[in-house]
């Protein structure tokens, strides 16, 4: 059996793993990165066009900490939050200066304002609006973090970091009786085993969105619309064939790591076909479906009941969490009539800016729907009657009619007794308008979050909340420790992944040097 000896082994080459390798290399310890994918992995190529950084000032750090701790309802590791925020202050120097990625737009936020914005502050909940937002310039049609990580890899290779692609770690080696971690077992593409001997192991293996059976087994995915979650359905918008299959979670749990809650980092999606140009690139829209389904109009579940203040339509954390945790089949339905379709043709609502530029007009919804339907999309429809919509979409008609009656009454009196939605957004749904439109919106997302819990030194915890010596973790899989356990269904996670990766790298380096 081939043996690879290193000071620290890193499992995964996404945002977190690369952040860890960066710190380890700078600390002068020997690093080997093991990646299951044949190329740099992670969900990053399809996600971050922005990141948030909390400036390293007492005011900013304090305000961010308070917002974040409250957001987690104090179920996070609060000391870890503090450290992660501090590390986030390093991101601009690393990404902009060292990796030479341009940030044409930077939104500086006052610390007193943290936690008050939503929308495109990375799709996170208000609670993660905790710093300056950097919008990055990608190359070609891609997002900037793909290039950032590639440059980081080249930089690290020059520093002597070894990368082993197509070499998944499948098993962690730990001394008996709760001893320290001493290595891991990986497999080469030809199936031969590799024994990794290391002083510390950092697991940064991302989520499990490429493993639907495991997601179902763990209760992360529970829907009859399972086919939409397969590669190309674009409900889970990590790129197809990402190989993110929960290897890291399983390996950690096998040697006694504590099991944390898991959520989908959700961004509400109407599945393909015909919504996006292809199976890989969620940001390249084939039509205006995403714009339409960000609008704050009537949403119901399969029972025909409203389930959220529709003003939260563009707060992906809020609406996705509501859909996932409360709705049958992790689905909701946006319903509007011909009058509202005409209203959108005059321009979308101000302030609903996720993927929307103010002043955008939505033209010919019926034609756009028909085109997607012709390509086989079964998640949208338009009919003359509510009955036909309900029959086609599988919505309880009596429930929906009752909801619409109350909703239309709220429009009449200018007051939404149930959810207090702003009257200007309550647009009645009337068959007399001539037509009824409906989209099925599923709770999709970038990755799964959570499942492995760490302490403030990025040390993986056992069931008794004690650190497992020599074992560290970072990235999407540890979000329960920084956003709260179980994590909310928050959006993209560079804000958490890179800082926890940097932290894990620093702590593992200190450990192998005998400094802690």
């Amino acid at each position, binding site marked *: 059996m081939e043996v690879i000896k290193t000071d620290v082994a890193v499992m995964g080459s996404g945002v977190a793993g690369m952040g860890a390798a960066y710190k380890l290399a700078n600390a002068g310890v020997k690093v080997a990165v093991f990646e299951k994918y044949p190329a740099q992995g992670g969900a990053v190529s399809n996600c971050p066009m922005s990141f948030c950084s909390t400036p390293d000032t007492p005011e900013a750090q304090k305000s961010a900490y308070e917002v974040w701790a409250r957001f987690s309802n104090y179920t996070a590791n609060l000391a870890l939050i503090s450290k992660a925020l501090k590390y986030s202050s390093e991101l601009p120097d690393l990404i902009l200066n060292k990796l030479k990625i341009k940030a044409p737009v930077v939104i500086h936020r006052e610390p007193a304002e943290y936690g008050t914005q939503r929308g495109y502050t990375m799709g996170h909940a208000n609670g993660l609006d905790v710093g300056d937002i950097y919008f990055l310039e990608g*190359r070609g*049609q*891609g997002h900037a973090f793909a290039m950032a990580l590639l440059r980081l890899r080249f930089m690290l290779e020059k520093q002597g970091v070894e990368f082993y692609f197509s070499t998944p770690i499948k098993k962690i080696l730990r001394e008996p009786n709760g001893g320290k971690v001493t290595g891991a077992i990986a497999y080469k593409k030809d199936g031969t085993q590799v024994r990794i001997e290391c002083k510390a192991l950092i697991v940064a293996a991302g989520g499990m969105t490429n493993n639907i059976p495991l997601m179902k087994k763990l209760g992360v995915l529970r829907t009859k619309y399972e086919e939409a979650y397969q590669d190309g359905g674009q409900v889970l918008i990590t790129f197809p*064939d990402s190989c993110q299959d929960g290897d890291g979670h399983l390996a950690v749990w096998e040697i006694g790591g504590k099991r944390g809650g898991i959520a989908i980092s959700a961004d509400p999606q109407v599945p393909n076909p015909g919504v996006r140009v292809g199976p890989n*690139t969620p940001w390249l829209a084939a039509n205006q479906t995403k714009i339409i389904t960000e609008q704050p109009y009537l949403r119901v579940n399969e029972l025909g009941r409203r389930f959220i203040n529709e003003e939260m339509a563009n707060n992906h954390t809020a609406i996705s969490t509501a859909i996932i945790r409360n709705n049958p089949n992790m689905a909701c339905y946006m319903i509007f009539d011909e009058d509202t379709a005409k209203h959108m043709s005059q321009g979308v609502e101000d302030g609903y800016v996720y993927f929307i530029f103010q002043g955008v007009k939505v033209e010919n919804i019926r034609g756009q729907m028909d085109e997607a339907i012709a390509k086989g999309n079964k998640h949208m429809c338009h009919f003359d009657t509510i009955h036909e919509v309900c029959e086609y979409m599988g919505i309880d008609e009596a429930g929906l009619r009752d909801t619409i009656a109350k909703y239309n009454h709220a429009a009449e009196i200018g007051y939404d007794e149930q959810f207090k939605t702003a009257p200007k957004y309550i647009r009645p749904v009337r068959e007399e308008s001539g037509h009824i439109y409906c989209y099925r919106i599923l709770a999709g997302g970038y990755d799964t979050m959570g499942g492995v819990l760490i302490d403030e030194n990025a040390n993986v915890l056992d069931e008794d909340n004690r650190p497992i010596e020599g074992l560290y973790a970072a990235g999407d899989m540890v979000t329960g420790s920084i956003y709260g356990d179980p994590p909310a269904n928050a959006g993209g996670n560079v804000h958490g992944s890179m800082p926890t990766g940097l932290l894990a790298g620093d702590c593992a380096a200190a450990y192998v040097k005998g400094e802690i």
Partner: protein
Amino acid sequence: MKIEIADYCIRCGICEDLYPDLFQRNYQEHCMDVLYDKIPEHLWARAKQSAEDCAVAAIRIVE
């Protein structure tokens, strides 16, 4: 004209989405395949544009 894909391609699939007549994801080898050994002349402009659109400059045109 030929298209070469550098080994640092991240398999994000932008090329397949925008140029399905030139690229296809290979699920067995976990890579992107170029559909032609020699690119037909009527696709030269698209091939060059695909190199411009790649997120990590992994697509190279060999004249």
